[in-house]
């Protein structure tokens, strides 16, 4: 089963999140700049004389398509990297994806999502290592 994660996060956290995702082997992603607000409501900005309220705040949305079994770890990673504990940290949505097609090769489904050394490649490597009796993790590639 393929899933899509949409994570709406603070602009200033984008680099932290990107680094954390790379560390766990999430290779493919894209981002869009979005505006909006949730429970936080908005912020007060300074005008020429007096302040005014702005309620559509800039945020960044990460789009990540990945296999079902990687969702929990990825969500956890984003939450850890994106959180400040203050209102306005954002939201994560997870959706089912019907099909994925890689344009260059025509590959479909799981094959279209695979990259060298991505989260699944590492998983495979770890499983193989376990099955031949070596301590899991000893052959894990360095992140």
């Amino acid at each position, binding site marked *: 089963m393929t899933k899509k994660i949409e994570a709406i996060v603070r602009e200033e956290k984008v680099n932290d999140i990107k680094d954390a995702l790379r560390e766990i082997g999430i290779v493919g992603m894209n981002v869009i700049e979005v505006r909006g607000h949730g429970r936080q409501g908005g912020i007060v900005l*300074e005008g020429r*004389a007096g302040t005014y309220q702005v309620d559509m705040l800039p945020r960044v949305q990460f789009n990540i398509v990945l296999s079902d079994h990687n969702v929990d770890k990825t969500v956890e990673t984003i939450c850890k990297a994106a959180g400040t504990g203050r209102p306005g940290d954002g939201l994560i949505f997870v959706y089912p994806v019907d099909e994925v097609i890689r344009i260059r090769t025509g590959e479909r489904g799981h094959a279209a999502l695979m990259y060298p050394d991505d989260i699944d490649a590492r998983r495979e490597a770890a499983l193989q290592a376990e099955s031949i009796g070596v301590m899991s993790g000893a052959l894990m590639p360095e992140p």
Partner: protein
Amino acid sequence: MNTVSAINAGDTAWVLIATALVMMMTPALAFFYGGMVRKKNVLSTLNLSFIIMAVISIQWVLVGYTLAFGPSISGLIGALNFAGLTGVGASPNADYAGTIPHLAFAAYQMMFAVITPALITGAFVERVRFKTFLIFALLWATLVYDPVAHWVWGVGGLLRQLGALDFAGGTVVHITAGFSALAFARVIGARHGYGKAPMEPHNIPYSVLGAGLLWVGWFGFNGGSALAANGLAVNALVTTNTAAAAAGLVWMFLTWMDNKPSVLGIVTGAVVGLVAITPAAGFVTPLAAIIIGGLAAVISYYAIKFRQRNNLDESLDVWACHGMGGAWGALATGLFATKMVNDAGADGLFYGNPGQFLVQAITVAVVITFAFGVTFVLAKVLDARLGLRVTDNEEEVGLDISEHGERAYA
């Protein structure tokens, strides 16, 4: 006296440079305003100022100069002797500037005539119909600016006869623009969604750039008004810089007391200081300039708040900044002027001459009434005949697309 041989190369060079500096202020103003509107109206806003350079340059050559500075008809208006700049050439006109070519004086004054209607555009950005605006600008220059310039600056002009002091246009430029903006804003009405939707400045860096260039240009505006490269020009340049500095600082503290030191506030403050020192620059000391600039910031700051409380969409605060700043500057000239700075001027109230303050107050009242009244009627007539506003749909789409078929950022 042989006037031709009296031309002074240094004076002429300075006035030519000052002409270029004042000319630069209109595109600078375009960016000052352009940064404060929404993205969909930035080209329209820039163009309201830019096209004025074209419209008024032609108007000035044809009739503007002679209406303002032609031989006075009963102190009310200049006669048509200089229409088409006929007879305005390389020889000086000793009435106004005896050491530079008459044509240099006319060109220098042209830049003042250009920037004044451009100032008014801040009142009606984001909703004005361009075609109507063009006609308004032409009529306003002819019916308001040229007569007031004649009354205050023309030899034989009514207010000049009265003894009014206006070194570089606090009354002629800033009061006329500011109070005309107020009148126009009342007639055209608020932008849709004003007071409900936030109308955020879309590019404050443009405004900072514009204000910075205005500050530079103002050395030509005020320093050049000495019409000579002399000590008076230096005094005007120093008082100008000092007032801008004081007003920028005071405005910074005012916004800081509210919340945080606003950058848009600081640069607005500097412009207001420049406005207020304009009538006084060649009559007061640098110390007086600190007080004139500093108090101007307080007056304009609270004028903006007053305007906001009254829910009037005078969109970019031309009245608060130029009208009130200019009125304060004109009155302050009647307080702080001293013959120690300029013996062709007068002493003000603080130098033992309360009469000068009275003259300034009368001048301010007359010009406010005239500018507001004529502009109000003019706007009403144009609204009835041609329509001042674009349609609701055109306003929603933005004037860049609906009036010009262009977008600022692809």
